[in-house]
């Protein structure tokens, strides 16, 4: 049973280098009849060192006897070097045209669309020499050196109005093209071995042409090493060029690719197949750059039996059989269940072969098994037809059935990782493409090209779509993250798409610190220019709200504005960081993540809540490094009153939920999915989940003397069983190693030591991201607690650097916040530029952020000089100081205060709603507070005139003076007022209801 390859529509077809010129060596006695090119001989000739193709023109004198000067009819090849010497001085020796440069573009543009792998009109295929020779309904299309019998020539030369003329669309070929074809056939229709043609659009050909004027800096070829093992093995190759402007192009079909030594492997249509054991290399050249890929072939003639785990299961995944909406559903579909995304191959084997007797399989006639017939749509199937009869997937299934549905031995190789090549792409121009290739590494050291078995997805189809064969096609300007999923692995690559002909000059922007440099690098990739730096007025309000959650008081404002020193912003940041409000802000944020809230009947008394909150407050106020706080939390033991950090295990008492919460809060990962099946969008498997959960399986809880108190301790025993095999998994760090643990060890200690250490790649990154999100309104990974392969950071380098610094700072929040606030990026204006107006994720400008509920209430209280009362806090306390998640009021609830019922950062609601607007307009939040606080009346009492009061109110609410137009309009309207106090209060009310007030900008 051979695993047939899908004919790879490996996408890009280029205007190739003349790698295989007309000179043809005698074919080596290779096992395949295909010609092998003698690369050594070929090489020197076509490849002069200079990359410009100009000098190469000379071996191609104009071919035709007819006096047809080339310039008249543009030669088809996009290689636009003028076929400069049209003069045919001497007897015209018919020169064979270059296949890659001249023949391919014509065939690809005009013929292959209808006569290729996809469609075969008239049963004719022209995408390979064999097919062309064989021809279609009317006979062979191509007969070497026979101009009469080659139907191809006949059809293109028909009169334009003939029904049979080819190509039927886009007008007849021009004379030059016809001439090239004629010459080609005359000279024997040379077709380099292994080259298959693919349909190309004009658009692609145009893009290809453009790229020729750009300078390449690097040629990359993937995978770096190829190892072919067994007869069925193969490997696809992707070649990519990188240009001086960072743009990348797939040049696999343009480059000259030859094998150093024929007979070991076969190179066919961008794919390598084994022939016999040995070593050789693949030589790749493109526009003067070279690259080689070492190739090793072993067991070239050995058959590889079809493995259930390695061959059959991937088909279920690729074809979508085991997806959640089909048979992967927990109850299966139409009474047939497969494990979701294949988390339980053993169970699947049983269900296919045994569960319903032999209903699903037919070993006597494998092709007629229900499993097969349903998938090819031969019998009615709710899921429809999934693949063709005879396709590779079909072959795999049938082959496996023919072998007698063997199950794999216990020690069958397991995929250990996958590579996704190339790792990124910057595509220029709508329609440009990049083929991807996926290489799986197995536990037995083997590798396989699993591109045909991989599921591909793009996060942004508008910018870059990826088809099921792994071909990325660029769309609109933007960014996309394309993902490959094979077995339990998901891996992604970042794709940036920029339009062609973009007018962009890399801006010269100063960098305040490392943050700016990294942000600017990313912006350059996207060809985006950041906005200007914001004004001092905007900055003082923004930074005060972000760091302290209150508006700058009069003194802070005045001191800052009067300061003339260049580092006045940094000084302001330092001053604000010393305020206790900074601590309170972060206590609140962590209280949310730790779900500090009372639930009397779930063992969280108000007393415990308060003690827990005060513990957290004490730690953060004393600047205890975050890693120590986390360690204290996770390893806590004792009574929930005596040692309040133990409340971490009391807030949530389900050990699996604790596992999930730890991953989500401290690593930013949602691993919930993996409780029941392998995570569909991330790398986490059920094994990972239960190995991680094992750290929490020995938490003991018992009642203390006070009924409200519990004692948390290490039980030293107890396991959580894996739901598939019903056995416990040994503790293993999520994405890390398995620690060595003795029976008496507290597993949580091992976990905490790893979790809050630099060894854990996620901890510092997650915290840095949380800090970043606070100051920018969105994380570098957004949402902050949804770190997964398929939700990559918008600027990975920036996040890594922040994490590195944070670790270096010994997890000191203040230092990180200082870096963030001092960066130019944080201080950008919110006014967009032409290039960054659509950008949402790369911090090219400041974004408006509504104040969160607690801050808004505090700020309203601040400007109206009124006081709030919350349970457990004295009159006049701030909303951000509330200890208990259960304590709220109408205002806070309306504006979306977190209820602390889950660890999700999504609990804080920032979306505006009608009730919020109405509450501000009509509720007691504004009007009655204005009256109650008597701000205007007191100012009047102090003898201030309306103009001064206006200034005061503007400074109070907006941290700025009124603009002249505002001042003039307001004074004019106040002039006629009978009651200045009331009118000014109306102005105050209007200010409080303005967007400028409720947003941080």
């Amino acid at each position, binding site marked *: 049973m051979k695993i047939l390859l899908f004919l790879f529509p490996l996408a890009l077809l280029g205007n190739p280098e003349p790698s295989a010129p007309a000179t043809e060596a005698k074919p080596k006695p290779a096992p395949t009849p295909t010609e092998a090119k003698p690369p050594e001989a070929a090489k020197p000739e076509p490849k002069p060192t200079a990359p410009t193709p100009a000098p190469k023109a000379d071996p191609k004198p104009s071919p035709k006897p007819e006096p047809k000067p080339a310039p008249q009819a543009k030669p088809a090849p996009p290689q636009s070097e003028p076929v400069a010497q049209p003069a045919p001085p001497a007897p015209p020796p018919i020169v064979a045209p270059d296949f890659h440069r001249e023949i391919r573009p014509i065939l690809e543009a005009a013929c292959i669309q209808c006569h290729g792998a996809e469609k075969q009109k008239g049963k004719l295929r022209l995408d390979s020499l064999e097919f062309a020779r064989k021809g279609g309904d009317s006979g062979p299309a191509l007969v070497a050196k026979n101009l009469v019998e080659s139907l191809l020539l006949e059809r293109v030369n028909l009169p334009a109005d003939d029904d049979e003329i080819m190509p039927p669309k886009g007008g007849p070929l021009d004379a030059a093209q016809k001439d090239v074809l004629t010459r080609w056939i005359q000279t024997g229709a040379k077709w380099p071995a292994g080259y298959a043609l693919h349909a190309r659009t004009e658009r692609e050909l145009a893009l290809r042409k453009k790229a020729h004027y750009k300078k390449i800096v690097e040629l990359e070829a993937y995978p770096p090493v190829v190892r072919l093992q067994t007869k069925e093995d193969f490997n696809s190759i992707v070649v990519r060029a990188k240009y001086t402007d960072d743009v990348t192009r797939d040049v696999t079909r343009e480059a000259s690719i030859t094998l150093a030594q024929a007979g070991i492997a076969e190179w066919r249509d961008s794919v390598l197949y084994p022939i016999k054991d040995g070593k050789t290399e693949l030589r790749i050249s493109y526009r003067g750059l070279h690259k080689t890929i070492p190739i090793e072939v072993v067991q070239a003639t050995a058959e590889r039996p079809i493995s259930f785990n390695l061959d059959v299961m991937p088909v279920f995944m690729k074809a979508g059989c085991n997806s959640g909406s089909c048979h992967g559903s927990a109850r299966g579909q139409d009474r047939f269940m497969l494990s979701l995304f294949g988390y339980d191959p053993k169970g699947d084997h049983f269900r296919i072969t045994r569960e319903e007797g032999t209903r699903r399989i037919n070993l006597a006639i494998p092709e007629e098994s229900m499993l097969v017939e349903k998938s090819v749509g031969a019998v009615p199937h709710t899921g429809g037809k999934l693949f063709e009869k005879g396709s590779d997937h079909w072959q795999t299934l049938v082959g496996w059935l023919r072998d007698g549905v063997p199950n794999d031995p216990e020690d069958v190789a397991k995929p250990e990782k996958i590579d996704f090549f190339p790792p990124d792409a910057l595509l220029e121009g709508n329609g440009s493409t990049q083929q991807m290739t996926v290489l799986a590494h197995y536990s037995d050291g083997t590798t396989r090209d699993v591109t045909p078995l991989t599921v591909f997805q793009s996060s942004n189809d508008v910018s870059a779509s990826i088809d099921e064969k792994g071909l990325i096609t660029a769309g609109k300007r933007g960014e996309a993250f394309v993902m490959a999923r094979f077995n339990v692995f998901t891996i992604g690559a970042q794709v940036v798409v920029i339009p062609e002909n973009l007018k962009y000059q890399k801006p010269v922007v100063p960098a305040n610190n490392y943050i700016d440099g990294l942000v600017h690098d990313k912006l350059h990739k996207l060809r985006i220019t950041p906005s200007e730096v914001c004004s001092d007025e905007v900055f003082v309000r923004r930074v005060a709200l972000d760091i302290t959650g209150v508006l700058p008081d009069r003194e802070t404002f005045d001191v800052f504005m009067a300061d003339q020193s260049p580092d006045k912003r940094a000084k302001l940041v330092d001053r604000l960081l010393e305020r206790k409000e900074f601590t309170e802000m972060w206590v609140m944020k962590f209280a949310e993540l730790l779900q500090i809230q009372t639930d009397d*009947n779930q063992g969280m008394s108000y007393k415990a809540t308060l003690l827990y909150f005060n513990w957290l407050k004490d730690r953060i106020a004393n600047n205890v490094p975050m890693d120590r706080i986390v360690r204290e939390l996770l390893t806590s033991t004792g009574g929930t009153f005596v040692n309040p950090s133990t409340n971490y295990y009391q807030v949530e008492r389900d050990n699996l939920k604790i596992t999930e919460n730890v991953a989500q809060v401290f690593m930013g990962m949602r691993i919930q999915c993996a409780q029941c099946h392998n995570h569909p969008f991330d790398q986490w498997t059920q094994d990972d989940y239960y190995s991680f959960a094992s750290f929490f399986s020995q938490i003991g809880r018992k009642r203390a003397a006070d009924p*409200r108190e519990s004692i948390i301790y290490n039980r030293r025993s107890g396991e959580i069983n894996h739901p598939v095999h019903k056995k416990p998994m040994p503790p293993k760090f999520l994405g890390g190693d398995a620690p060595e643990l003795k029976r008496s060890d507290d597993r949580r200690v091992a976990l905490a030591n790893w979790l809050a250490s630099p060894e854990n790649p996620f901890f510092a990154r997650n915290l840095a991201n949380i800090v970043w999100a606070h100051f920018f309104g969105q994380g570098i990974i957004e949402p902050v607690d949804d770190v997964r392969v398929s939700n990559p950071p918008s600027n990975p380098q920036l996040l890594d650097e922040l994490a590195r610094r944070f670790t270096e700072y010994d997890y000191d929040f203040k230092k990180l916040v200082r870096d963030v606030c001092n960066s130019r990026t944080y201080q950008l204006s919110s006014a967009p530029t032409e290039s960054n107006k659509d950008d949402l994720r790369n911090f090219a400008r400041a974004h408006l952020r509504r104040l969160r509920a607690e801050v808004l209430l505090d700020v309203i209280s601040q400007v109206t000089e009124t006081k709030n009362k919350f349970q457990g806090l004295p009159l006049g306390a701030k909303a951000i100081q509330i200890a208990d998640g259960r304590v709220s009021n109408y205002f806070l609830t309306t504006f979306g205060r977190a209820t602390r019922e889950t660890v999700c950062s999504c609990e804080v609601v920032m979306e505006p709603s009608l009730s919020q607007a109405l509450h501000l307009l009509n509720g007691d939040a504004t009007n009655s507070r204005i009256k109650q606080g008597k701000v205007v009346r007191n100012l009047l009492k102090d003898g201030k005139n309306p103009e001064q009061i206006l200034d005061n109110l503007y400074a109070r609410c907006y941290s700025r003076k009124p603009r002249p137009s505002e001042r003039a309009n307001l004074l004019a309207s106040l002039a006629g007022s009978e009651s200045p106090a009331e009118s000014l209060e109306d102005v105050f009310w209007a200010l409080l209801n303005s967007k400028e007030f409720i947003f941080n900008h």
Partner: protein
Amino acid sequence: MKKITSLFAGFLLAGSLFATEPIISSLLPRGGQAGSTQEIIVRGQRLDQATEFLFYGEGIRTTKIEEEKSTVLKVALEIAKDAPLGQHKLRIRTNEGLSNLYTFWVSPYPNVKEEEPNSAFDEAQAIPVNSTVNGVALNEDVDFYEINATKGQRISVEVEAIRLSGPLFDPYIAILDDKRFELATSDDSELLLQDSTLSVVAPRDGTYVVEVRESSYRGGSSFQYRLHVGNFPRPLVVFPAGGEAGKTVEFTFLGDAKGPFKASIKLPENESDDELPYFHREGSLSSPSPNRIRISTYPSVLEKEPNQNRNDSTATEQFLPLAFDGVIQEDKDVDYFRFKAKKGQRYYIKAMARAVASPLDPVLNLYDAKGSSLVGNDDSNGPDSLLTYTFPKDGEYLLRIKDHLDKGSPAHVYRIETHRILPEVSASIPLFRTRDTQSRQMLPIARGSQVATALNVSRKSFSGDLEILARNLPAGVTMEAPPVNGAFTSTPILLRASKDAPLGQSLVDLSLVHENAEKKVKVSGSFKHDVALVYGPPNNRTYYHTKLSRLAVAVVDPIPFKVKLHQPVNPIVRSGSQNIKVEIVRDANFTKAITVRILTRPPGIGAKSSISIAEGKSVGYYALTANGGTALGTWKIGVQAETGAPGGGIWRVASDFIDLRVEEPFVSMKINMAAVQRGKEGEMICDLNVRRPFEGLATAELKGLPPFSATTKIEFDANTSQLSFPIQTEDKARAGLTKNLFCFVRVPMSGELITHTVGQGGQIRLDNPPPKPKAPAKPKPKEVAEAKPAPAKKKPLSRLEQLRLSAQGGSN
């Protein structure tokens, strides 16, 4: 009608005359100093005509009871100089009833009142040293008190908050210096649970401030506290934690700010005391609350280090019972004891740590001499441990004790006591509502009337009959208590007050005695009442409680009705039922509706919890049913009649006991399954088994038939062995199976009928008519119709026979 209304008006006017059941809802201040007279204000309901205070202990008497309103009393309490310190339990008796239990606290120091404002450090209220403040923690209220101290002086603070039995008041205290720095804080303590105590040595001369608040800033007007501030000693833990009765033992007191100190104490010999509340005195200064020293009748073994493993254990040659005293001195410390025990003896082995105010959370393990584990326990007794074990042979055993979290310190004291498991018995009044341990736990008896209560009897390690005796009944009161059958866990008692019994009250000792002269067994026990005084989350757990061993009984003013239960002539049979006549004897003009409740039922007897007798009516019937397993014999039962008293509260009066005879049934029955076609007639055949002969004709009634089907009552005599009920069904009856048919059989005896419920589980199936043949086969149905009556008349067919027949018919 008009007459009645006016009469009621009369009652209402004289409402106060008939008020019952006084309720104390607050008593302020919550305590006073020993050797003083303390004026208190009692608030509640129906406090008018409060005549006397009923104290459960010695040392306090009332010198004045002034009624301000029916809801407010002004009382002067004279507290003797030697009145025991701490909690005193009391009830108030009015002429109509007895109140709920309330507490009053006696302190050694003069009492001061909290004066607001004292909610800020700068406004701290100055108080004399060695005084007790009666204060209240309002919502989010923090109270500050200022005292002076000289360098080296001890400052001790203790607060009574949760112990005052109000809401769940978990206090927090702190001692601050004049610069606001905390010298010490206390939230919860092992000694006083939620209540806080601490002591420090003043670092310099100057003023110090004591802060008091609810630990989570809760509060309210009912959050009363008593704060003792002074130079008194405040030891927290005693080592050893106990000793042998009658011996003089040297104890070390730990936890006081001035360091450990020692005292030699002779332990009392009184057998009933298992602990000594010990107030340590330094001159005139005494701790406000005691340290509790355990007393055992058997010797103590004192830990000797090293004893960290079984080879280095502290060994004794003595046999159990023994007590083991020791300290888990440091983290990870483990103590082993080696001792001897006799084969077959069953013991409770209790590790007491929280019980002796130690922070230790003990884990106890028992091993045999070779170290093989026998049994272990962590928390069976709250945080303390409890093992129950029968020693399999004479020999050596090992006990290991350690802390659950491997903690240790010199204060981690423990005492392991061993109690031979002996027969025990006790009785208590059942609770009438959940989370209510006070309602109806005392017995007010109207003069010339009688009340009753059920008692739940709890026996441990024995079963047998019991006799209930009462001592110290109020004058003119007698008790009737039927002997308690060994199988019963509930029994009634009845108390009667003669017409001329004086108003008064007493605490009655109820004792339960089991004596078996042959086996030489004598077991005795007493009444017990555990009063929950503070409830809190989760699910209203009890946070603070007190135990009573005497029953409060009072003689009060008469009430205007009596209840009579008529002795039935016939017995009730197992699986039978009986209606018992209840009669209300009303005073003239008393017409109110009355509810009658059965007191307690012998096992197997079922009854509604109450029946009501309408206004003006005087007779009702209480239906009793007996299940198949009801204890045979003659049992005392009684009822209690109750109705709302005009001033609130409830009047209760009990009937005399009557004898309930339970006998075997006369007949039993099996109902055979029947099938009838809808709209047709059929039969229900019942096999009758007459187990005891009877005279005359009995009747049988089939019950539980589906709708639209009917049968008739059948009469039969003692010689009948089968009954056949004709069944008529209507067309509209629904087809299907009906289960749970049964039969009422009434057997005549002594001119009355004894009801039996027999034949439970009978089934009848209603069938649809067979589908009519489509072809015009008219003659056929006739054939069938003619064929049918013939066999039917002969003999009723069994279900199987019917099936066979229909099978034959089908094959034809």
